[in-house]
């Protein structure tokens, strides 16, 4: 097997259910060159060091022209919006992220996420109550999919009566990230683009409304703030709000679904969680290591030649950082293929590291902790209908498309 095929194998759908043996193969060459312009980094310390390296850019404009077309057929968002801070470097990144953080987290708003706890718990309870008298559900469609969209609606301040609209746009955009091979790509792009446009128009109207009558939601705060960093432009507001929706959605769906799948494969841990809700914290951290929702970061490029592990990555190359592989690196984590919530010193790469580390991490943690604790507590004898479950196409935002489970009723 040549190394080039190894990378294609990882991207190939047939490996989606269990890419980890392929990652182990990949780690034998910590910095693997694929073609002229792509370098794949798969070991913990090398990934960590590049995440903190100021010679690495997240801005696609720094890619050399030949490196711009990658193996991943990423939907080119023919979007009129400027890149959000996820795809920017300092100082633009820092300014936009700082302005977005101001109404979301410390130091200015340390209690935003904490104060959402009650509301999150109510959303979770409502979704479980909605299982009704069924004894079989799809964890994805019935639970982990609707939950984060509702949370983002509440965070941004989308009126309740518009949440259904918001859900349908989010569904369409998410489907665009997860192409069905049988579908006509042109049609898919058209439908996705239409959803993006409608979402943009909707948000634009909401921005107008909030600038006149601000509430205590995050969008109002973003619209009205004018501190040392000035104000966000309309375009910046739209791209930031879209980023929060898309980045905060699909990843959380996968975290919760991967979590339930892993707990059902480790019934002893599920049983412990049932008796000790405090265990949700280390369980979610171990999940972020063991089954991270973002498997790899394909958007980095080099501003200079970088020597790492005996390889020189040339300026302008495309660099993939395979977080999920670094998380299973035996040089860093003893017995890495074991799911062990009692693991000490679990400094995983599940949320990345460095200046682009996951913006919504505190919210995602809380969502996953509450979701898994309640599923564990309320469902009687939950069981997997099939293992492995069917996966989404997407190799980057990896997770099951459906997770059918049966159970013997649920507690109030």
């Amino acid at each position, binding site marked *: 097997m040549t190394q080039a095929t190894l990378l294609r194998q990882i991207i190939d759908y047939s490996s989606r259910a269990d890419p980890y043996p392929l990652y182990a193969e990949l780690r034998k060459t910590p910095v693997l060159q694929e073609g002229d312009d792509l370098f794949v980094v798969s070991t913990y310390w090398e990934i*960590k*060091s590049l995440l*903190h*390296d*100021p*010679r*690495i*850019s997240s801005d696609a404009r720094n890619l050399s022209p030949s490196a711009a077309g990658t193996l991943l057929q990423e939907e080119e968002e023919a979007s009129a919006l400027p890149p959000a801070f996820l795809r920017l*470097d*300092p*100082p633009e990144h*820092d300014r936009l992220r700082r302005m977005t953080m101001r109404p979301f987290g410390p*130091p200015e708003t340390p209690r935003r996420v904490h104060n959402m706890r009650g509301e999150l718990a109510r959303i979770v309870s409502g979704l479980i109550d909605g299982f009704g008298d069924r004894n079989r559900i799809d964890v994805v469609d019935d639970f982990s999919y609707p939950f984060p969209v509702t949370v983002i609606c509440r965070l941004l301040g989308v009126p309740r009566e518009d949440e259904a609209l918001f859900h349908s746009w989010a569904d369409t955009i998410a489907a665009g990230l997860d192409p069905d091979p049988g579908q006509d790509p042109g049609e898919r792009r058209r439908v996705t683009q239409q959803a993006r446009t409608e979402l943009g128009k909707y948000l634009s109207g909401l921005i107008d409304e909030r600038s006149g009558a601000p509430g205590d939601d995050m969008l109002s705060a973003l619209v009205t703030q004018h501190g040392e960093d000035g104000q966000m432009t309309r375009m910046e507001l739209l791209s930031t709000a879209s980023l929060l929706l898309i980045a905060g959605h699909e990843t959380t769906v996968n975290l919760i679904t991967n979590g339930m799948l892993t707990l059902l494969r480790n019934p002893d841990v599920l049983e412990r969680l049932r008796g000790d809700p405090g265990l949700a914290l280390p369980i979610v951290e171990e999940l972020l290591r063991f089954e991270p929702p973002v498997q790899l970061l394909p958007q980095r490029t080099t*501003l*200079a*030649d970088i020597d790492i592990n005996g390889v020189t990555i040339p300026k302008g190359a495309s660099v993939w950082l395979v977080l999920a592989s670094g998380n299973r690196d035996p040089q860093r984590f003893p017995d890495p293929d074991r799911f062990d919530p009692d693991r000490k010193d679990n400094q995983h790469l599940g949320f990345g590291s*460095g*200046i682009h*580390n996951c913006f919504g991490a505190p919210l995602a943690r809380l969502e996953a902790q509450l979701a898994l604790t309640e599923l564990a507590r309320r469902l009687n004898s939950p069981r997997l209908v099939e293992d492995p479950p069917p996966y989404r196409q997407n190799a980057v935002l990896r997770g099951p498309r459906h997770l059918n489970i049966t159970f013997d009723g649920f507690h109030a």
Partner: protein
Amino acid sequence: MSGDGALAWLRREGRIVIVGASLAGLRAAETLRKEGFTGSLTLIGDEPHEPYDRPPLSKQVLLGHATADRTALPRRLALDAHWRLGVAATGLDMAAKRVRLADGDEVEYDRLLIATGVHARPWPHKSEAELDGVFVLRTRDDAARLQRRLAASPRRVLVIGAGFTGSEIASACRERGLPVTVAERGAAPLVGALGGVIGRAAADLQREHGVDLRCGIMVTALEGDAPGRLRRAHLSDGTTIDTDVAVVSLGATRNTEWLAGSGLGAGPRGIACDAGCRAFDVRGIVTDDVFVAGDVARSPHALFGYQFLSLEHWGNAVAQAETAAHNMISSSSERRPHLWVPAFWSAQFGVNIKSVGVPSLGEEVIVAQGSLSDRRFTCVYGYQGRVIAAVAFDQTKWLEFYQRQIESAAPFPPDYPSVDRRPEGLRPVPAEFPDPSLPTHGPSVTVSGYSPTDQRITFVPAHA
């Protein structure tokens, strides 16, 4: 008894005494137990309190967000130790292996760890230092007293000395809305630790936050009223400041007086030890049973030309204590060197400052990322053509990269493009450290010569 047998006996039923019951002492004790030491363990501390954490004292405690008695360090395991708190060690008899205590008691040891730390350098004029309203800030009790006084809304606070502690105190006072004057002998705040280039940024930061900052100036006298309350300070430019609180922040002095005449290589710059934390005696011979850790230690560092470094850093105290404890109960082949790369942080005027390496060794500095005028930047220091340190204001996430540059002796100035490189980052400039032979309170890293007993740099208090 064979060497191995002696070590096994020591680990099983030996007597280990730790002088100093703060961060380094506690972490060393925990490491000893974690590594299987089952003998008797004694911790001696001059303060009556169980080990507590100091960084919050000049921040959350002064702001009133936390109380001084809630700063106890977390215990990671049960120690089963004899605690001798509130009683200072007053002498060491190395031949008899005994520590003398202030209450006349003596404690025998098979292995001794000295982690006595530092104390705040007091105001040099005793009668003035005793005025009501004159404070230092080092201990929990200091912090509680100062916090109470700040809460009583004094008309003005005078901070004498703009090193890290002084600057953090000034920041807390401004956050409480109190008028503050800072008097600094050097050209700028933090100049001893970070040099003149960053010092100017720190000065702008203080003034923007409403501090009445006066640099290049000394406080010559503190004047009290008849009942002994501070009323006024006299400055070297002939001016006076009416104030009823003065905080003396002139740096720290190593707690080594108790070792005078012991034969140990101890002096005002600390206790010299090897990279394995074993203390040197005055002859420059390393001892087998006396170890040193934390602020009081001076140890040679391979990355910095084997110079002896004295570090007043939280992280250093932890790392060195763990290394010392490990080495105390290990055979020579299992001993580890203390190779911690110096690092510290500070929070003041809304800015997170972090440093790695030894900035004060720097000859030149370059603004590698960001901009000094934005107060968000990463500066890199060069020494003889290599990267020796980096300091970030509100950009701390990049320092991991620069730490590796220091560890790998990467060339200076950096010859590669990076994100956020501005025009001011194209050329290095002189780092502008004050002449090291001049007394300064500032640096929290000092490089103090090559030989274990070299005491050539000593502090001379400012003249009145």
